[in-house]
């Protein structure tokens, strides 16, 4: 093996068919309202934690659906559970339970 001084860059593409999307399936079975999210971003904009960090429930949901699980476990632990997201969600997604279920599934 030769070190040329560079390596092949990691592909950023979401390879949907190869990603492990099982967490979404479990989440979906335990909290079906995750399905009706329309990714409007209201939750992430009102988020108390969002004032301090890049935390976004919207992105967490979409990334889990795509099986992009990097950092999800760290991210969900940033949530303070205050419930503002639940109050503002136009689709009435049970946001807090999504966090609750994820914390259980991912540990």
């Amino acid at each position, binding site marked *: *093996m*030769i070190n040329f001084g560079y390596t*092949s860059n*990691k*592909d950023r593409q979401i390879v949907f068919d190869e990603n492990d999307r099982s967490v979404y399936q479990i989440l979906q079975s335990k909290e079906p309202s995750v399905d009706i999210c329309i990714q409007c971003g209201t939750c992430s904009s009102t988020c108390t934690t969002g004032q301090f960090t890049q935390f976004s429930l919207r992105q967490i949901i979409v990334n889990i659906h795509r099986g992009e699980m990097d950092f999800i476990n760290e991210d969900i632990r940033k949530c303070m559970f205050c419930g503002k997201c639940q109050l503002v969600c136009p689709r009435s997604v049970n946001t807090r339970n999504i966090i609750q279920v994820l914390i259980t599934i991912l540990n």
Partner: protein
Amino acid sequence: MNVEGKKLIWQDYQKEIADNNYYYVRSCVRQTFFPGSETAFLRILKTELNKDVCDQSIHTSCTGIGYHSDVVPIETTMTVVARQFALMTEAGYKNFVPSCITSFGLYTEVLETWHHFPELEARIRENLRKATGREFEKPDNLAHASDVIFKFRKEIAAKSKYRLINKNTGEPIKVVDHIGCHYSKMFPGKGIGGAEYPYVLAGMIEEWGGEVIDYPERRHCCGFGFRQYLVKQNRGYSLACSRKKFESMEPYEPELILTNCPGCPMFLDRWQYAINEMEGKSYGKNGQGIPVMTYEELAGLMLGYDPWDLGLQVHQVGCESLLDKIGIEYDPDKKYKGLEDKELGKPKTPSNILFV
């Protein structure tokens, strides 16, 4: 796949290609990467097809690499391009044939720009006049060298000694084509077959007996992308692009990659070696690489030229497996011998698998 549908599209992208009297401009890098290719082009046109080709040594780089790397301003580039046209005009030619895809894209872009902004053209004429005292006519016909070979693919086939057919099985050789990005992605109408399903190389492969293989990442760039390769820190990105293509084509088991751009054969060839050195992965059959060729090299092989005259020994991925399949005769001992049997020196063989 519905080939009929593809043909409908090909019909929409027909292109006028002059049939004689070409003014040939060479590529900066091809002569060092694949030195036999341009020689083969001239030999085919002049001796096989009896065409008039003007090949001068006084033209310069088109500045394309510098232009796309943001180091040469556009007016400078246009003036250099204007000088190339002036040389053509002075030599009495009207059909401009660049060897390089980047050049072809650049000439097309300059001509299009002048078409829409005549005042710019006037200023460039003025610049050229001031700098060199030359005047120029815009070419009547601008075609890439691969367009010219495409135009005469049937004539070449008629004169061919070999066909792209496995002599043992009688099956056509499976070839993937890779078109240089600047050939038609910028101006789909200027490329044979357009940008989505280019036909220029596919037409040659079909005509010479091979089977064209489509694969999902066919349109993806080889990874040259000037700034990606030229800066060493970015080189991993270049490598990743080629790797994406290899991984995508691998299941189709192609036996040859055919290219028409200076950079693409370079990267598709050398990166196979680099990936193998880094990770031990190879994409051809039996742990071998997939041979990569330029269209001139392939045309030359079909016409029975000696592989070593075509410069196939400077390829990183050895082409002997393909030559054997087609049944092309060659002398293995002469591989690393130059003109008058001068020793060229042997490359260091890759450590883990036999690539050369």
